[in-house]
């Protein structure tokens, strides 16, 4: 009987030891090391650098990047375009005017001003503008 009890106790002790040897002990909070946050810290630092760089950048450095798309395109030199068209044969005026006016609505007034000053033939211009034949003479 004593032998049986001793065997059970020894078996329990050996079995418990074997179980501990197989299953690693559960981690405990107190024993844990501080987490390695260096990667996160580095990433945040990079983001901060980018944001800070934008926020702290001198106005002169950021202004062109922001203002450039908002700057209105240079105004058309309607007078120069009008003179270019006027230098072409009147038979081409209608086509040239109708194409150019898509980008420069002030072109017509510029050409009309030339005609009103008699720098170009008014009848020819009116024919081009109104799409009617030139004078019958």
């Amino acid at each position, binding site marked *: 009987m004593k032998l049986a009890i001793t065997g059970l106790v020894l078996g329990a002790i050996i079995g418990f030891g074997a179980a501990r040897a197989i299953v690693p002990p559960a981690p405990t909070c107190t024993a844990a090391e501080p987490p390695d946050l260096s990667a996160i810290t580095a990433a945040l630092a990079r983001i901060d650098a980018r944001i800070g760089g934008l926020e702290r950048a001198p106005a002169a450095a950021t202004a062109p990047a922001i203002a450039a798309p908002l700057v209105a395109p240079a105004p058309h030199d309607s007078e120069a375009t009008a003179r270019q068209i006027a230098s072409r044969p009147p038979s081409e005026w209608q086509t040239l005017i*109708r194409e150019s*006016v*898509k*980008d420069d*609505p002030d072109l*017509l*007034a*510029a*050409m*009309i*001003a*030339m*005609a*009103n*000053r008699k720098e170009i033939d*008014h*009848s020819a*211009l*009116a024919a081009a*503008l*109104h*799409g009617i034949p030139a*004078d*019958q*003479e």
Partner: protein
Amino acid sequence: MRQTGAISVIGVMKKLSLALLLVSQFMSPAFAGYKVDGPMAPNVYRRADGSLAISGLFANARITADTRSYVGCSVWAFLQSNGTVSQLVLCSGQNATDGGSCSSTNPAFIATANSLNGDSYIAFEANSSGVCTSLSVQNQSQFRPKTL
């Protein structure tokens, strides 16, 4: 003697008929109403500052003896390169010796030009840059209708 009397009566009746015909013509209601003929060719007035004033009746410009006179406006609508649709009005006038035009993108000028009809009277002004500064349209009964 009787023949002479008959001829005399016929002669009197002929004269009476002619007189009645003339009177009826002057009494005809077709000639009633106030009428303004105005100058035939469009008037082109040039100012020292380079501006112009042009006026004329469509019907009169149409029947001038010369082959140059006309007056009127065109209205355009076109798609600009930036994708927006623009409208503009062009008004021109020409007589035998002189002419001028103006243009505008102002909606008020475009609306005024759209009120023109085939028998209108038109007056417009252009500044030295060729831009319309005034546009007047009159559609009135005293103006003659356009003829071929």
